[in-house]
């Protein structure tokens, strides 16, 4: 344990020279997390060399983590709860399925993001003025509608049969699931970088202030509704990216990938990870996506245990994994101090 460094007083901080960061904690390493993610991803591919099943699970975790980064911003920064984000997952996924092969991956990704953002801004303008539960239920209805459209608009989505033969993102000369995994890791690193950039930007700070005390934020000149729409649109961007990855991994786009269950998973991920925490999307995705896969020995009771776990975390550990880490860390520190004494 390092010796406690002298903490500068508030006055000293305020008087500190205005550097690259205005009034924000001076040292915010926004490159650390992307670097760690890239490093771990490379280690997994080159050293761990997981088998096909594990690799698929890891790729799905990375894809959901990508989608959940935006959700982390939505729930953690601006405090809005949406139960309909599978809609944006579907926008990204179906855009990829329809456009990737004829038009190329860049067009497919960008058009998926564009569709998702347009939907998010429209829905946000209509629904975000609602109070909390009403907004959650409104997005639930929106997601349900999205599933019904995906099932029945056969001209666009080919209905329940789905669209197959969708190709994948080829990176670093890799093939198959390995390539999708690498692409997912790179995209995850990028959106995590975006997340941290947002956190220290005026927009991100406005979101945080608007979450803790909306009237006060309004009095300070923060346009809370506009900030909520921005957060909602950002969650749509990463959800569209995640949707494209999920479709590539599954080898096709099917309505079942984008049901309310997917929305619920997306909502659970950042909360079980610890909303607003920068690692919440990844840790949450590991728990929500990977854990049920490795609980298969519980057989029929696997999802029962999972559901009970979700409730238990929500009720007794509202800070999620972050709270657990923090508490065990401070417990360890106090233990260490006692032992030294």
């Amino acid at each position, binding site marked *: 344990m390092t010796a406690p460094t002298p903490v500068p007083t508030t006055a000293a901080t305020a008087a500190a020279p205005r550097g690259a960061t205005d009034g924000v904690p001076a040292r915010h390493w926004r490159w650390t997390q992307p670097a760690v993610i890239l490093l771990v991803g490379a280690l997994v591919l080159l050293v761990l060399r997981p088998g096909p099943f594990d690799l698929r699970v890891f790729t799905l975790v990375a894809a959901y983590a990508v989608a959940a980064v935006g959700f982390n911003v939505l*729930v953690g920064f601006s*405090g809005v*709860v949406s*139960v309909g984000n599978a809609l944006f997952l579907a926008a990204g996924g179906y855009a990829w399925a329809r456009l990737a092969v004829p038009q190329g991956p860049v067009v497919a990704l960008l058009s998926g993001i564009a569709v998702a953002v347009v939907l998010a801004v429209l829905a946000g303008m*209509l*629904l975000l*003025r*609602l*109070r*909390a*539960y*009403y907004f*959650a*239920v*409104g997005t*639930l*209805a*929106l997601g*349900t*509608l999205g599933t*019904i*459209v995906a*099932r*029945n608009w056969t001209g666009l989505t080919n209905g329940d049969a789905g669209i197959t033969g969708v190709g994948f993102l080829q990176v670093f000369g890799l093939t198959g699931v390995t390539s999708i995994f690498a692409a997912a890791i790179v995209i995850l690193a990028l959106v995590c970088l975006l997340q941290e950039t947002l956190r220290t930007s005026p927009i991100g700070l406005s979101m945080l202030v608007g979450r803790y005390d*909306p*009237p006060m934020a309004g009095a300070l000149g923060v346009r809370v509704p506009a900030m909520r729409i921005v957060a909602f649109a950002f969650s749509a961007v990463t959800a569209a990216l995640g949707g494209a990855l999920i479709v590539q991994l599954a080898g096709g786009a099917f309505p079942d990938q984008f049901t*309310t269950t997917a929305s*619920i998973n997306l*909502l*659970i991920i950042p*909360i*079980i990870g610890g*909303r607003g925490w920068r690692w919440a999307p990844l840790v949450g995705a590991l728990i929500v996506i990977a854990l049920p896969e490795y609980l298969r020995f519980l057989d*029929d*009771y696997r*999802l*029962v245990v*999972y*559901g*009970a*776990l*979700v*409730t*238990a*975390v*929500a*009720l*007794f550990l*509202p800070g999620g994994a972050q709270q657990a880490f923090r508490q065990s860390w401070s417990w360890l520190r106090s233990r260490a101090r006692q032992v030294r004494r």
Partner: protein
Amino acid sequence: MGQLTYFLAIGLGIGAVYALAALGIVTLYTGSGLANFAQGDLLVLAGLVAVTVAGAGYGWFLGLLAGLLATAVAGLVLGLLFVRPMRDRRLDVDVVVIGTLGVAITLTQLSGVWFGRQPQRLSSPLAGVSIPVGDLRVPAHYLLLVVVAVLVFLALRWFGRRTDVGLQLRAVAGGIQAARDAGVRVGRMLVIAWVITGVVGGIAGVLVASVVPLAPESGLPLGVNGFAAAIIGGLASPGGAVVGGLVVGLSESLAGGYLNDAVRQSIAPLVLLIVLVVRPGGLLGRTATARVA
């Protein structure tokens, strides 16, 4: 003309189911400020228990009792579970949503393990009896649904306004600290609210099992429609829940009869969205003004 009356009668019956589901949600909301996203799964639990008991030869009435007992116990367990974190503070919205969604996942999967994943149907005590409407015949069970929904509504209204416990429940919903200062046993009230929710959900579940075959996965759509009904009515108003349920049921029945099934499925979410956009507080809800502390 006879066809229209038929669709209206069916719609009223289906609407009564949604009204019952919504009444459970509204009871919990007015009793504790919690929005229960697992209400649909409580319905399914009661329905499947009743199907199993009735199927074992004990008859419909014992099935109903068993279903009610199951959801009352489920409500009791959930109440005891939710009391501790709620005793001192109002829970955040996301915690409530996730917490009850976790309950929904658990209940869906438990029902799947216990009762199998096939849709099952409960034969109604009024099976074979029907009411002539023009040249078509509406099963009498639909009438039973409407009557029960009205009775449950009246009972809840009486309970909330005329009994001591009902008043205390409303005090808790208004503000935990204020209620406690006035001498209300807050934790006990929260548990009571959950048990009532469970019983109301149980009644709805057993009755709906004779109209729609229930599978463990039916919980979510039932819950969504119940929520649509509750929100249309304004979430805190039992009368609104009944109105909302009838609106959703009637529009579903008419859309299914005159248009197609895809429209029928999307009508509940569509109506909900339209109401939310046009009247954000619900049809019978008051437009809330935020209080700045």
